[in-house]
C-alpha cells in the first residue's frame, strides 16, 4: 500500500500537508478580512502588507533585540495591530461618510506604500528566519514525515481561528460585534462606544494578519512581496466563503488549501488556478458565497 490511484502515498500526503499549511494561512488571513469587513464594510486591501509586516516584525525582534520567535508571536500582532489602530483612527475613520470604495482605495494605496518602503529598504530577495529550536525536527508517521514546525502552524492556526469564532459567536463581546454589524447606529444609542469598537476591531483584524505573518516567517522567506502574492488568493477565498462570514472564511480557507494541494498531485498544471476556477463556479451558483447572506 504505497500507492493510491497510482500516486505514491509519500507524494500525496506531502502535498496534503502543504495544502493544510497554505490553508492555515488562507484561513487566518481571510478571517481577519471577514472580521474587518463585517463591521467596517471595508475590504482591507492592506492585509497582505500587514501580514508581511508581521513577518518583518519577527525578523527585527530577533536580529535587533534578540527576542525569540515566541516573543514575536505575541509582540508582532500587538505592534502591527497598533499600526492598524493608528490607520483606522487617523485615516479610515474620516472616510465612513463616503462611499465604501474610498476605504478600499485608501487601503490599496497604503499597501503599495508599505510594500514600496520595505522593498526600498530590504530589496526583494527575502531574509532568512530560522525555525525556533524547540520546533526543529519532525515525526515519522510511517506513511510520511511530519515536520514539527508545520504541525505547530496547523494547530496554532486552527486554535486561533476557532477561538476567534467562539469569541464572536458565543461571548458578550462578540454579541456587541454582531449587533453592531447589523445596526451600528442603534448599538451606539444603547450606550456602547461604537467608534472605539470599530477602531479595536480593525486593530484585531490586522493583528490576525500579523500573527499569520510571524508564523509564516520560518516557512516562506521574509520578503516585502510575500503578502502581495498571497493576498490575491486570500481574496478569492473570502469571496468563495462569503464576505464577512466568520465560519465561512475559516472552513473555506482550510478546504481550498487542501484542494490546491490535491490538485498539485493529480493535475499539477491546474494548481495555480484551481481556486479561481472554484471562485468563478461559486459566484455563478451562489453569488453571496458559500456561507454568505445577501446584504
Amino acid at each position, binding site marked *: 500500500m504505497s500507492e493510491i490511484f497510482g500516486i505514491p502515498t509519500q507524494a500525496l500526503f506531502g502535498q496534503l500537508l502543504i495544502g493544510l499549511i497554505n490553508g492555515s494561512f488562507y484561513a487566518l488571513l481571510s478571517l481577519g478580512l471577514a472580521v474587518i469587513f463585517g463591521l467596517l464594510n471595508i475590504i482591507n486591501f492592506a492585509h497582505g502588507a500587514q501580514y508581511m509586516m508581521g513577518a518583518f516584525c519577527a525578523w527585527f525582534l530577533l536580529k535587533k533585540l534578540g527576542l525569540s520567535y515566541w516573543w514575536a508571536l505575541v509582540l508582532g500582532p500587538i505592534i502591527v495591530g497598533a499600526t492598524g489602530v493608528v490607520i483606522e483612527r487617523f485615516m479610515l475613520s474620516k472616510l465612513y461618510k463616503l462611499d465604501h470604495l474610498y476605504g478600499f482605495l485608501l487601503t490599496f494605496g497604503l499597501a503599495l506604500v508599505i510594500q514600496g518602503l520595505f522593498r526600498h529598504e530590504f530589496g526583494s530577495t527575502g531574509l532568512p528566519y530560522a525555525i525556533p529550536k524547540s520546533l526543529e525536527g519532525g515525526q515519522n508517521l510511517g506513511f510520511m514525515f511530519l515536520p514539527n514546525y508545520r504541525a505547530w502552524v496547523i494547530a496554532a492556526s486552527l486554535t486561533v481561528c476557532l477561538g476567534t469564532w467562539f469569541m464572536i459567536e458565543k461571548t458578550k463581546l462578540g*454579541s456587541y460585534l454582531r*449587533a453592531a454589524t447589523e445596526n451600528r447606529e442603534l448599538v451606539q444609542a444603547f450606550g456602547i462606544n461604537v467608534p472605539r469598537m470599530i477602531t479595536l476591531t480593525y486593530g484585531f483584524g490586522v493583528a490576525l494578519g500579523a500573527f499569520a505573518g510571524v508564523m509564516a516567517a520560518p516557512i516562506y522567506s521574509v520578503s516585502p512581496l510575500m503578502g502581495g502574492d498571497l493576498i490575491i488568493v486570500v481574496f478569492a477565498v473570502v469571496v468563495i466563503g462569503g464576505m464577512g462570514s466568520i465560519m465561512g472564511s475559516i472552513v473555506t480557507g482550510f478546504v481550498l488549501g487542501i484542494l490546491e494541494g490535491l490538485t498539485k498531485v493529480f493535475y499539477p498544471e491546474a494548481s495555480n488556478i484551481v481556486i479561481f476556477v472554484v471562485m468563478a463556479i461559486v459566484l455563478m451558483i451562489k453569488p453571496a458565497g458559500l456561507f454568505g447572506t445577501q446584504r
Partner: protein
Amino acid sequence: MAEQPLLAIEALNAYYGRAQALEDVNVEITGGSTSVIGRNGMGKTTLCNAIVGLPPARITGSIRDQGKELVGLASYKVAKLGIGYVPQGRRLFPSLSVDEHLRMVASRGGAKRWTVDRAYELFPRLQERKRNGGAQLSGGEQQMLAIGRILRTGATLLLLDEPTEGLAPVIVQQIGSTIRKLKDEGLTILLVEQNLRFAQTVADRHYVLESGRVIDMIPSAELDANMQKVHEYLGV
C-alpha cells in the same frame, strides 16, 4: 426641588438637506409620562432621533437633560445619561438570541436595577423564547424584548417610538399596562404615537405635532373636552 424639567427641548429645528422636518419645537418633560402625537410623516421619529443623537437629520436648537446639552453629543454618551430609545419597528438584531439581547446592553447601574431575571419576570413570554433569534419573535414579543433590552441599560427616561404599531389589540393592552407599571416605578416616559386612544391610557399630557411644529399641548384630563379639536388635528 425647583421645577427643573428632566428634558427640555427648546427651539429645535431639524433639516434633511434643505427640507425642514422640525420647526421651532418646544417640549418640556417634567416626569411621569408625556406623549407626542401626530400622524405619519409629521416629524415624530425625527424628534426621537434628534434626542438620542442619531443621524441623519441636521439639528439646531437645544435639548437639555437636567441642564446638560444633548445636541451635538455622541449617541452613546446620550445613552449613558439614562435616555433609552425603543425605536419604531423595534429593530432587534436577527443574529442575537433573546437572552443575548438582554445581556449585551447592560450597564452597571442598569444591570443591578434590572437583572435579566427581572426582565423575564416583567415579560414571562420572553423567558420561554430565550434561545430564539430576534427575527423569530412575534410583533408583541419583539416589542417586549425591545423594552426589556432598554431597561437593562439603566435608562430612567424611556423614549418609545410607536410601540403599538402593527400589534393586535390584546398585545397593545399588555404593552400599555407594562408602560404604566414602569411609570409607577418612577421611570419617565416619552411616548411618540399616532394612536391617540393608546396614548390617552398611558400619558399625562399630550403634545400635538403637525408638519414639524408643536401646535398644541393638552393635559390628559382635558382631553375629553377637547376631543373635537384633537380629531381635527389627527384627521380622524
